[in-house]
C-alpha cells in the first residue's frame, strides 16, 4: 500500500499540472524541484502529517500541505495564489466541489484552505522572488 504522503504528492501533481497556462507543467514537490526550473512554477510540500484515529479498523491521516506559486513579479505570484486556491479549496470527495483525481489506496476526504503563505526573498543579482500560496488541511482515508 502506498504511503498517504506519497499518494497525496501524486494526486496534487496530477491535479495541478497544466491546470493553468501560467505555470504549465511546472509543478514540483519539494523532492523533485530542480534548480534550473524556470519561473513561474508551483511548489508544494508536506508541512505535517498526523495519524487521526476515527475508526478502529481503518487508518485516517490529517496532512498540512503547503502549495505556492513562485514568480518573479508580485502580480503573477498573487494570480497563482488565487488560481491554486480555486483549484484546491473544497476539492475532496466529501467537499462541495469534489474534483481531485482518484487513487486506489487512499481517498482524499476533504481539502480546506488555511493560512496564507507570504514570502519574498532576494535571489542572485538582487532579483526579488515572490512566493504566494496557502497551506491546506487535508483529511485522507485508506481504502
Amino acid at each position, binding site marked *: 500500500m502506498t504511503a498517504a504522503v506519497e499518494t497525496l504528492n501524486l494526486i496534487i501533481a496530477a491535479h495541478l499540472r497544466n491546470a493553468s497556462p501560467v505555470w504549465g507543467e511546472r509543478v514540483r514537490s519539494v523532492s523533485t524541484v530542480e534548480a534550473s526550473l524556470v519561473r513561474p512554477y508551483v511548489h508544494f510540500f508536506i508541512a505535517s502529517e498526523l495519524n487521526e484515529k476515527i475508526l*478502529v479498523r481503518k487508518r485516517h491521516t490529517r496532512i498540512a500541505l503547503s502549495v505556492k506559486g513562485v514568480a518573479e513579479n508580485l502580480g503573477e505570484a498573487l494570480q497563482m495564489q488565487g488560481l491554486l486556491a480555486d483549484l484546491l479549496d473544497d476539492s475532496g470527495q466529501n467537499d462541495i466541489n469534489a474534483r481531485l483525481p482518484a487513487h486506489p489506496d487512499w481517498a482524499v476526504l*476533504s481539502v480546506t484552505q488555511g493560512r496564507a503563505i507570504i514570502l519574498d526573498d532576494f535571489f542572485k543579482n538582487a532579483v526579488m522572488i515572490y512566493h504566494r500560496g496557502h497551506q491546506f488541511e487535508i*483529511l485522507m482515508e485508506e481504502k
Partner: protein
Amino acid sequence: MSVQNSNNAYLRFGSTQLQGYWTEQLNFEETADTEDTSAGAGRTHIAREPKLVDNKMDFLVIYDDVTIAQYVQTLRAGVKDTLIWGPEGNASGKPRFEGSMILTSTKYTQSVDKKKHSFTLSFVQGDTPVATISGGDTFA
C-alpha cells in the same frame, strides 16, 4: 496481566455488528439508587438500602457514506433489542455484557467546519441482563 487501553470493542445491537463503525468512545454505567430506610426514635444517622440495579450505555457511530445502508436500520430510536458489548472483543473467555436494551435517543451532528459526522446512540436497560461485566460473565 496488562492494563487495558485497547479499542478492540465488540458491539452488537440486534443482529447488526457496530464495532466497525464505532468512533470516539463508548460509555457504560451500572447504577443502583438508594432508599432511605431510617426508622425509629433516637437515630443519629441515615440508613439506606440499595434499590434495583440499572444499566445505561451510549456510544457514537460514524456516518460512512459507503456502508451506512448496512447499519442505518439499527439507528432508529424506540427499538428494544439485545445489546452485546465486549470491551476486549468477543473471543471465548473475554468479558461480556448482554441484555435487553432500549435505544432511547439517536443524536446526529454535522458542522460547517468539516468535523466528522456521527450518531450518538443512548440506551437504557429494558430487562434484567443476561450477562454482565461485573458479574464475571464471558463469551462462550
